[in-house]
């Protein structure tokens, strides 16, 4: 992330689109849009974020530091969310299913050296 402009009550940041997805950037700056005016633009392969209305007494360096951390965190969140989207759907579907059917595929085997078939127990 590059800080393109840092003067008075305004900061302009440039983020390569290959680094963070647009949804990560949006989600991150959502949390800043209460205190500051946020403008997000896509220019070539970059996202330009204009933050204005920054109070005079605010430590801009800490602010930028925090933004960097937050971007990293939201990026991690996106990795997790994307990878777990399907399993989450499966989990919730199973949670609310009325399972009258037996899912007869438990893991592993039950054999001792003689051998054992769980279906010796009749259904």
């Amino acid at each position, binding site marked *: 992330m590059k800080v393109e402009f840092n003067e008075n009550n305004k900061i302009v940041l440039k983020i390569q689109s290959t680094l963070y997805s647009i949804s990560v950037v949006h989600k991150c700056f959502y949390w800043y849009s209460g205190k500051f005016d946020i403008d997000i633009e896509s220019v070539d392969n970059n996202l330009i974020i204009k933050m204005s209305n920054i109070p005079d007494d605010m430590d801009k360096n800490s602010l930028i530091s925090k933004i960097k951390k937050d971007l990293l965190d939201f990026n991690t969140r996106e990795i997790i969310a994307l990878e777990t989207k399907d399993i989450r759907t499966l989990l919730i579907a199973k949670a609310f299913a009325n399972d009258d059917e037996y899912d*007869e595929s438990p893991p592993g085997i039950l054999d001792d050296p003689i051998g054992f078939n769980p279906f010796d127990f009749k259904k």
Partner: protein
Amino acid sequence: MIQLKTRGIPINLTAPTVATIISQTWSKDLVANTPSGQTVFLFKNVPPIQDKIMIVGIATLEYLEEGDIIYIDTNGSIHTLFRKNSHHNALFITDRCNSNCLMCSQPPKNVDDLTHFFNINTSLIPLISKDTIELGITGGEPTLLGQRFITLLGQIKDELPNTDIHILTNGRSFAWKHIPHALSNINNERMVYGIPLYSDYYRQHDYIVQAKDAFNQTVLGLHNMAKFKHRLELRIVLHKESFKRLPKLAKYIYMNFPFVEHIAFMGLEYTGYTIANKDLLWMEPTEYSDELEDAVLYLNAMGMNVSIYNLQLCLLKPSLWKFAQRSISDWKQNYLKECESCSETERCGGVFATSKKHSQLIQAIK
């Protein structure tokens, strides 16, 4: 240590049989009755042979009492199946087991004895007195009996409707849902399943029980059993491989199995496989006292029912004394010389007579 087996020379015994001791003769010999109404005589010495079923030349008979039920094999061996004056009777299902726990106190045998014991048990059950308070079911792994396990439990329900049945099983079969379902059809509210769980981390549990996928099977099994409203107890044996994650296991139990009606933390018996694996397993119970206290007090605070078995009071923190039960089966209970001057022998369960080694730190409490 109470004797449970003896032998003599069989006379006129054509088939193995169960029998109930009905009386003592003037000479302290015993008379027993079989289910088919035949009388069997048990003699210490060798009397003149008669046209009756006799076992003669038996070294010791004094341990047997009226009401005890025995199994007599054609080779003249006499096994005690049921002791009238004991609170610790159990039906033995099989020596087979599909796990191979590092600390197994009764190492499994790879011989198919299911039919042998099934026949003994189905003959035994009708002979057991109906006012028996509690009966265990043990092995090996009882569920290996398959469909006949259902038959046996059904017979128990019919013959002993007022007896609490405590089934010890590794619970792995219960991952196959149709088995908990079949068990629920027996409809006996007095059955409780005691199932071991040694860690919250699958690798640790599987390693301790020496069986791949055992953890997942047991955990799924517990949930299936709960779905079918079975009564469940968890058992945790305390040793070097299980103590470190004990507080985490306690939390895992509360969060995932809040429905279990009892949790037992058990001291290690120095017998069976434990001896072969002593370097992996044996430790002074005082060394895990922090973890044990953590786990027990946590579960208790969250409203779970907790007991400590097989640990002597002198080895436990006082905060845990109220959880300690006199749990060692009477037939294998003992006290040490150090216990002679102890003020707590009434409360304390003593040590395992079967243990070849005890804690070095057992001492009298004054």
